[in-house]
């Protein structure tokens, strides 16, 4: 029933279908009481709607409320983390592909550490430390204090409201360090996917090591790296939900908040799951498109 020759004997109704239908029936019976309870539950979706958008009397317009704001925060958080992770991944990935032992030791240690520790623990470990360090080094606090309203508006749109900026930046750094390990591996694999002959040809032409990377290897590695990197970006969106535990007001955190305020547990988690699903599906749809275009390029 498995394998390339399945088409010789495709059946529309196989024994497996019978078993499956029976199982589904059993499941409905098992879930029966629960479903009846769910039916009796007084669904109240208007609550969700109210936490999505609110009426702003000042501007006489509808404005996004906490849930929608959380959704946007998730997007901003993911994009910035993705940028940080990509920069780390590029640098570490190129290092990891070098022959020098020191380079390999450093990158391996980083990658193994970041990939073998629970992200949640990394968040606890790094968040406070990084938060304080980065704030100190970038002079973030002073900058925020001295910010004029227009800059503040731009910063709010691009990242987070000025008051939350230090927390936001350190969340981005934590996620970036964590996801950077995966991107390091992606970039390294991409570089190593370039046939050895390409390096040698570059070498024979007298290109310097840097030029070999820049003009010969990286442009070819890109085709392997890009689809995988986009896939990793989808992981970043999902993993960003972890920073809810340190009160970054992204989507999951807002879900918890609204749940505490309204007790509409069912409606909230269904909605939150749907919002993530939407975001992630759109991105994987885009990723598939990119992959297809790249594949066409290569196949030529």
């Amino acid at each position, binding site marked *: *029933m*498995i*394998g*390339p*020759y*399945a088409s010789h*004997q*495709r*059946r*529309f109704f*196989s024994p*497996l*279908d019978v078993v*499956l*239908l029976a199982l589904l029936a059993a499941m409905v019976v098992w*879930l029966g009481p*629960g*479903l009846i*309870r769910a039916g009796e539950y007084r669904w109240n979706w208007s609550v969700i709607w109210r936490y999505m958008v609110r009426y702003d009397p000042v501007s006489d317009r509808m404005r996004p409320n906490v849930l929608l704001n959380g959704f946007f925060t998730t997007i901003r958080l993911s994009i910035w983390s993705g940028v940080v992770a990509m920069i780390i991944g590029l640098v570490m990935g190129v290092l990891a592909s070098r022959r*020098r*032992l*020191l380079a390999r*030791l*450093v990158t391996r*240690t980083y990658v*193994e*550490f970041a990939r*073998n*520790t*629970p*992200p*949640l*623990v*990394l968040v*606890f*470990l790094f968040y*406070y*430390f990084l938060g*304080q360090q980065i704030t100190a080094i970038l002079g973030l606090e002073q900058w925020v204090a001295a910010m004029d309203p227009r800059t503040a508006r731009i910063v709010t749109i691009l990242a987070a409201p000025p008051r939350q900026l230090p927390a936001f930046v350190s969340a981005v750094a934590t996620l970036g360090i964590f996801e950077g390990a995966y991107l390091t591996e992606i970039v390294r694999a991409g570089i190593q996917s370039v046939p050895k002959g390409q390096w040698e040809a570059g070498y024979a032409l007298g290109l310097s090591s840097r030029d070999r990377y820049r003009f010969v290897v990286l442009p070819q590695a890109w085709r392997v790296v890009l689809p995988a990197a986009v896939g990793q970006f989808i992981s970043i*969106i*999902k*993993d*960003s*939900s*972890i920073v*809810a535990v340190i009160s970054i007001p992204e989507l*999951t955190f807002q*879900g918890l908040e609204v*749940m505490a305020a309204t007790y509409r*547990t*069912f409606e909230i*988690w*269904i909605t*939150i*799951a749907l919002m*993530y*699903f939407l975001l*992630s*599906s759109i991105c*994987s749809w885009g990723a598939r498109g990119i992959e297809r275009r790249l594949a066409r390029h290569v196949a030529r």
Partner: protein
Amino acid sequence: MRSRTLKRFFTHILRTPVPDVLGFVALLAALGLLFAYNTAALGYRWQWHRVLRFIFTIRDGGFVPGPLLTGLGVTLRVVAASLVLSILIALVTALFRLSRSLLAQTIARVYLEVIRNTPLIVQLFFTYFVVAPLVGMDGWTAAILALSLFEGAYASEIIRGGITSLPAGQWEAAYSTGLGRRDALRFVVLPQAFRRILPPLVGQAVSLIKDSALVSTIAIYDLTMSGQVIVARTFLAFEIWFVVALIYLVITVTLSASVSVLRHKLLGKYEYHY
């Protein structure tokens, strides 16, 4: 004469891994010092001596596990249960996706899409807050179910990938020598797929261990939750989180290392270029 031997000695040293390893150690030390210095500058008081009692204590000559070890026990139990369940789910899902039944394929596809497009933490909340009250599950069951469903989705793709990534020539050769579909699967495809599947599957087990830390968000007292409780009570944030990270690392790195050994064992003898 002397200087030439010395020079030879140094060029020889430079070609061994020694300078690289030394450089690496120096780098680590610098990082550690920087970290210690900066935390101290921020007014953090390091108190490593207070940490041990949270791991274990010796009372009346007997070994008494502290909250961290107890938490580790909970983590391991959650992981063990989820591992078994997730592999079962993965096998069934992979078979569904490869089957000819449209119904089975649809069920598998919907399951995979839902799991892969939402965060685990939301799935945990969903299971714990929505599904559990409907069917009367306790927190433990909800945690294990959510974790298994999550890891099972990824593991099933590993299994399916192992089967479908086999070059078509292997199927064709089996088919041409007269083997039936079931024999081809049993003697040619699955044994090879198994060798390709096992290493990434162990990798997925590492993920399971890491992801299990998230069950602390639905009030399961695992290793991470114990860490949180201790930190909240004692403010030993860095010490405790370092220890917790280290415990996780020991387990996951051991597993990861076993993967590369496994890969050599499984593939070494007939590394083959199709």
